[in-house]
């Protein structure tokens, strides 16, 4: 006996939807805080309608068939929005797997007299839905990756502030790892600010950089050279003992660059370069 899958599904559509909804509700990980019952039902119904309409005996074995493109699209949309809403991968995966359960249960009831036909149709349906769930995961992860990328950009943007410490002195605290892309941003920001403010001295504070390897040192040297070409002097400050050790062990030559242990001593040096003096006030009645 041959099972006409498309007719069967059309006939049993409401039943499948009910089963699917029950399955989804039964699970304790249902996130009512993230999506309303109503919303979930509409979403599920839309997907099932599409599936029932598109699936037929011919394309059920061919999971790559272009017939399923609309379904993959809907799934992509769902998992994309779920990734951004903060659903866990388990919850998103469960959405598809509960549909598979509902379908299989219905099939079992309908075709229970013929085990070989049941086996055949079960295999097909299960393959099709597995492929759907894989594509769901793919887009789910893609959605998450987009979030990560956006955050990385944001961090890169906010983590390179150029501060005017004094008239003619700029400071640039670097926090986090210094890679090529970031050096570029740091360099551009610093040079732009030098032009805008006409500052003659820039202090590069690396106390927030976790580790300095030869590549990072290379980047630092580049930044210093570029500032020199612009006509400003660059001081590197915040050299921690560990960093000093690694720099020496790696044989990096920083002798052409003014280096200071702390931002305070760098500032002091900058003051002396500008022939400025900081004096303690002798009067008691200073005003703030």
């Amino acid at each position, binding site marked *: 006996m041959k099972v006409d899958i498309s007719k069967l599904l059309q006939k049993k559509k409401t039943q499948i939807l009910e089963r699917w909804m029950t399955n989804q509700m039964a699970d304790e990980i249902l996130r009512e805080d993230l999506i309303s019952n109503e919303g979930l039902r509409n979403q599920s119904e839309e997907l099932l309608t599409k599936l029932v309409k598109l699936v037929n005996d011919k394309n059920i074995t061919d999971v790559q068939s272009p017939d399923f493109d609309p379904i993959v699209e809907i799934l992509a949309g769902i998992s994309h929005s779920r990734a951004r809403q903060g659903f866990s991968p388990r919850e998103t995966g469960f959405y598809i797997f509960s549909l598979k359960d509902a379908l299989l249960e219905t099939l079992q009831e309908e075709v229970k007299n013929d085990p070989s036909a049941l086996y055949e149709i079960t295999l097909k349906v299960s393959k099709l839905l597995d492929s759907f769930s894989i594509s769901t995961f793919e887009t789910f992860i893609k959605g998450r990756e987009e979030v990560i990328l956006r955050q990385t950009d944001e961090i890169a943007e906010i983590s390179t502030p150029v501060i005017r410490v004094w008239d003619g002195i700029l400071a640039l605290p670097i926090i986090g790892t210094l890679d090529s892309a970031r050096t*570029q941003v740091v360099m*551009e920001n610093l040079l732009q600010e*030098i*032009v805008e403010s*006409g500052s*003659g001295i820039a202090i590069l504070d690396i106390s927030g950089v976790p580790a300095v390897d030869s590549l990072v040192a290379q980047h630092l040297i*580049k930044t210093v050279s*570029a500032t020199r*070409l612009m*006509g400003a002097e660059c001081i590197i400050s915040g050299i921690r003992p560990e960093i000093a050790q690694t720099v020496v062990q790696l044989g990096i030559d920083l002798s052409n660059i003014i280096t200071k242990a702390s931002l305070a001593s760098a500032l002091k040096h900058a003051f002396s370069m500008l022939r400025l003096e900081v004096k303690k006030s002798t009067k008691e009645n200073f005003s703030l």
Partner: protein
Amino acid sequence: MDRIPILQMGKFLLVTIQVDLYDRLALNLETDLAQMVYKTGARGVLIDISALSIVDSFMGRIIGNIGTMSKIMDAETVLVGMQPAVAITLVELGLELKGVSTALNVEKGMLLLRNKIDSFSETDIEEQDDSSAE
């Protein structure tokens, strides 16, 4: 043929590059500047490149050449007003223009030149004093 004007201001020569340099123009500038330094006996050369937005390795080398050239003719070279993009390009190309002094703008460049030449002439006098005392 296009030429970049070289202005004389007392002991200094002033070159402002207002157009994008092409190779021929840069080579001409190099020759002209050497001639001018020789003719006027200038003590300092100030090159303003604030309008220069594009620089390649050839231009970088020419600028470096001008610096070294003036130096052996006893004239200090100060390069002023380099654009950030130009500075980054030069560093990426590995041209750090050693031997050429830089300043942010013409005013600071002039101050730097004066300081350099003053300090040189002071040491000259001191040395003379020393020798006369002995």
